[in-house]
């Protein structure tokens, strides 16, 4: 007798990513690296970002990471890496904005599957405020790594 909201949270695709996370591990080269923790549960992620292309329109060549956490947060990191790799930074911003907005909706927003693909499966967590942080942590890490990477890129260019 499992509750409906529970099965909407934990789906096969979540566990697929939890078990076999895509693009996991820390790789070179990279321009930015950040380490984020969730102070309440002790979860951690180290995330590296590698950009290529012109400084005014860079492309995400690689997102590599080492994530410690619950199924939701690990699946989130995996899906995010898969979604963002190969995208322009501009397009990635659209994706992450859309995703984070949906996550903040407390279950009201089903998410834009066109834009965020498999990551709609993560939105089950948006009904559980205590879990939103787990899911969002990799995305916050991406944002922080992007700031670092762009700065590094700008410095290299100058």
């Amino acid at each position: 007798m499992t509750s409906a909201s529970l099965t909407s949270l934990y789906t096969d695709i979540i566990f697929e990513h939890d078990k076999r996370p895509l693009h996991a591990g820390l790789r070179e080269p990279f321009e930015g690296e950040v380490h984020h923790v969730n102070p309440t549960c002790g979860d951690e992620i180290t995330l590296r970002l590698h950009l290529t292309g012109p400084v005014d329109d860079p492309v995400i060549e690689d997102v590599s990471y080492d994530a410690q956490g619950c199924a939701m947060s690990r699946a989130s990191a995996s899906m995010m890496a898969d979604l963002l790799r190969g995208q322009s930074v501009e397009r990635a911003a659209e994706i992450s904005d859309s995703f984070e907005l949906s996550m903040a909706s407390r279950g009201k927003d089903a998410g834009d599957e066109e834009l965020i693909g498999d990551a709609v499966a993560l939105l089950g967590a948006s009904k559980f405020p205590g879990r939103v942080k787990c899911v969002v942590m990799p995305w916050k890490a991406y944002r922080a790594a992007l700031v670092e990477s762009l700065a590094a890129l700008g410095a290299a260019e100058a």
Partner: protein
Amino acid sequence: MTASPTPFDVEAVRRDFPILGRTLADGRPLVYLDAGATSQRPQQVIDAEVAFLTSGNAAVKRGAHQMAEAATDAYEGARERVAAFIGARRAEEIVFTKNATESLNLVAYALGNGDASTPDRLRVREGDEILVTEMEHHANLVPWQELARRTGATLRWIPLGDDFRLDLTDLDSLLTERTKVLALSHQSNVLGTVNPVRELAERARAVGALVVLDACQSVPHMPVSVADLGVDLLAFSGHKMLGPTGIGVLWGRYDVLAELPPFLTGGSMIEEVFMDRSTYAEPPARFEAGTPMVSQAVGLAAACDYLDGLGRENVLAHEGALTRRAIAGLAEIPGVRILGPALSDDRAGAVAFDLAGRHPHDVGQVLDSLGIQVRVGHHCAWPLHRRYGLHGTTRASFSVHTTAAEVDALVDGMAQVVAFFDRFR
């Protein structure tokens, strides 16, 4: 497993707690197993506070009118009640704070606030050492890290052993003439381990160190008498012992409090104030700056009445039986590893555990869907978890209203957790 006989009528107790009547999502009854984080309030505590607010509320100590006198009597009466509750020799040994965290910060700051007039034993300075343990709650660790940083003192710690108890092997080299303070918890909020406080306090006294005890997890759950423990200062919180949030206690031996410099400053803690300098009142006033939490003190006194009404030995017996039942039941679940000593005399309280291959958040989520409210994470004891190679655990903790059936629901819930996640293997 049949329910063991309890020393009081748990069903009658449950009727005192209005919140226990509520249901959760999907109409699940509330199984509240998070008393270690914060307890629920019996109607008696709520009523005491409301009665005060609707009849006697006024500023304490500062007014000379009838209302102020009534409020002061209520507040000082609560101080006497709390003193009696923990066996303090005099009411002036009780300082009201907002929570145990403030109580511990008070001591850590005050020990850094002294000047030439402060006795050396109440002044932490460069070269001094502060000794804590690896099992401490952040509230009894970070304030000492900060005191060390501010003063140039050195922080050392007693490590945890593989048996989930303090490893006292090297105590002689850790607790020395250089040690100014030994700060430790009475009972771990994760492991349930009860530390040998009396023995450690004696060793500390022998080297002249002040002993500060974090009694957050002992005072609510067992008879505690400061007269017996041999410590100098002791901290606990109201909200963990059926009392209100927003009130904590620092007990201190009067001779220690009498010479301890102030911490928070402002109204009601002064003797004389000039623009450029002030002198300070005697304890406990010296440590209670500003308008105190009056109605909360009244509520806390009612919580003392409630617990003493049940009998502290009875509370210990009741909750101890639940702990044993939980440990026995959880041990049967495949993959469950309990963090803490097995059944023994120096073990009660919380039952924290790991489920192999599953993050505590995921475990807690499934239990939550069953109405079982447990805590997941590091429980503000991050170094302790790191010591055992974990990021977090799932923790069940019990109170006077917890039933054997609720413990069984937890054990059964864990079986369902395992089954749930097995589907995705």
